Every structure is written in C-alpha cells, then in structure tokens.
C-alpha cells in the first residue's frame, strides 16, 4: 500500500490551515465544518479550556489539567495520523489525504514568543476567543478585533520582519 508522502505539498509558510481539497465544498457540504466547530466549542467550554484561570494555572505549573488536555490531544493526533498513513485512508470524497510540511522560519521563534505573551494576558489562543464570546463574554469581541488588527499589521509588514 502506498503511504502518503508528506513532502508532496509544501505549504504557504504563512498559512497553517490550507485547503487541500481539489474541488470546492459547496452549499450544505460546508455545514459539516459548522457542526464540527460546535462540537469543538462545547469541549472547549466543558473542559474549561477557555478559562483565563486555567491558563494562569498552566503557566504557574499549578495544575496538570491543561497539560493533560494538550498532551492527550497531541497523542490522539499522532496515532490518528499514523493510522491514516499506514492504511492509506482517503477522504470521504476518495481523495488522497495531504498533510503539508512546515518549513522552519525565525517567525516560529519570534512570533511564537509574542503570541505566548498575549496568551498569558488574554487567557486565550484564537480558538477559545470565539468560544469565550459565545459563552457570553461579549467584551472579548474587542480582543478578537484587536487580534484581527494584529494579524493585519503582521501581513502589512511581513516582508520587512526577520523571517
């Protein structure tokens, strides 16, 4: 059985979630992503991952909870991807599954560090921002707008920053 060659697709270094489906999802087909997002958002709230308190606990090394969540998510992801590769599992549309290769750049160090500073202030990475808003903390909408502005400023000066 042919294993998926992960070098087949070299991603746009600035886009970690590229759409590698050959044909576009249309209409109701897109609904599955909303449903997946809803389930994901429920887990975020139920496991208190969106809690500013939980992020403080994590960075103060005073609870195993967040490390357990992220660690077991990674282990599950590793096993899943290995199964997909070993058995040559295809998408429900019969396409070969592509996993883009991430190229090393300085941005992963500098940008990663900057994001870490922000993560400890807001108590949220981008996913939980959306779930916090949905949970009724509408003021986090301001944080989200500011995060979009930060993304835009990065895009504007991307070619002038060390990378």
């Amino acid at each position, binding site marked *: 059985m042919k294993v998926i060659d992960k070098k087949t697709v070299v991603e746009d270094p600035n886009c970690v979630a590229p759409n590698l489906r050959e044909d576009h999802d249309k209409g109701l087909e897109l609904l599955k992503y909303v449903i997946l997002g809803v*389930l994901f958002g*429920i887990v975020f709230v139920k496991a208190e991952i969106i809690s500013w308190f939980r992020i403080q606990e994590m960075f103060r090394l005073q609870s195993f909870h967040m490390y357990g969540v992220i660690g077991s998510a990674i282990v599950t992801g590793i096993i899943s991807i290995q199964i*997909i590769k070993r058995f040559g599992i295809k998408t429900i549309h019969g396409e070969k599954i592509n996993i883009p290769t991430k190229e090393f750049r300085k941005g992963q160090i500098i940008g990663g560090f900057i994001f*870490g500073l*922000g993560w400890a202030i807001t108590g949220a990475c981008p996913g939980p921002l959306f779930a916090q808003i949905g949970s009724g903390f509408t003021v986090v909408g301001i944080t989200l707008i500011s995060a979009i502005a930060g993304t835009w400023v990065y895009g504007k000066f991307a070619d002038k920053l060390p990378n």
Partner: protein
Amino acid sequence: MNEFIEWVSQPWPWYVAGPLIGLTVPALLILGNKTFGISSSLRHVCAMCVPAGIPFFTYNWKKEIWNLLFVIGILIGGFVATSYLSNPEIIKISEATQSDLAALGITDYSSLLPVEIFSWQNLFTAKGLVFFVIGGFLVGFGTRYAGGCTSGHAIMGISSLQWPSLVATIFFMIGGFLMTHLLLEPLMKIVGF
C-alpha cells in the same frame, strides 16, 4: 436522558477533552482534506474585509470559507455549552493559583473568566487597553508571525511530527511563562488592580 444531561453538565476531565480535541485532526482530514488550524481564520477575515492590496491578504479566501464556518461553529458551541450544559458550581482552580491571583486582586470565580477583568466597564480604561487591545494584538500578530497557534502548531504540527511546530510551541510557552511570572504583576499594578 436527565442523567445524561447531568453527566455532561459536570466539567469534563482532561482525558475526555484532550482526545476529543485530538480527534478533530483526523475528522478534518477525512471530511475534506483540511488541516486543523484556527488562527488562519483571522487572516481570512483580513483578506475578506481589508486586503488593502497587501500581497499577504491577496488570495482566494472564498476557498477557505470552511475555516470561518468552523470558528463560527466554535462560537455557537460556546453558547450552547454555556446555556444548556453548563456546570452550576464555581470553577475549581488550584489553591496555589487562587492565592497567587488574590495577590493580583483577582478573587471572583463565579464564571470561567474573572469578571474583574472581562467586563465592558473596563473597555475604555487602562485595564481594557492591556487585557483586550494589547493582549488581542499580541495574539493576532504573534500567531500569524509564527504561522499558527496552539491548534495549528502544538496539536496539528506536532501530531504530524514536524519539528518547526515543536519549536513554535516551546516559544509559546516561554512567552507565556515570562508574562505570567515577570510581567503580569507589574502590568496589573500599573493599570490599577
């Protein structure tokens, strides 16, 4: 049914939540050859609303609409979980963290987020400037500069055994530790906590 609702209404332990989050990786791959990543949605919003001729935002964002629908789903999921499945008790945070945060003036555990910080009254104050405006900016700028966030790098990247994602994740943590242990306290003092 009532028992089920009661059961899901408790906070979920890490060994339930973590694997469920991890399963998002194969779910997205198998459902549509999509790579798990959330911070990209912020870029797509820029591309959709204010591309301003910047090459970084000039691409066919319509092809990436799934990512925006996914994050809208997360927002709806947050609403559903809080409205229908929420845990009635106050959040149980470790005592060590509680005493550390009390020293910073944070003592209200009635919600998942401290209301002392996350309220509209703080918006046009120094508190709001630090926690919403600057905090959000660092998250958006940093994740895009790093090429991903906790989902794209820590979970998707490490799951597919890519060392640059491990490097990024280590630096997320270094930034977080530095902010929490060295900068947060003086910053909170300055803005009036």
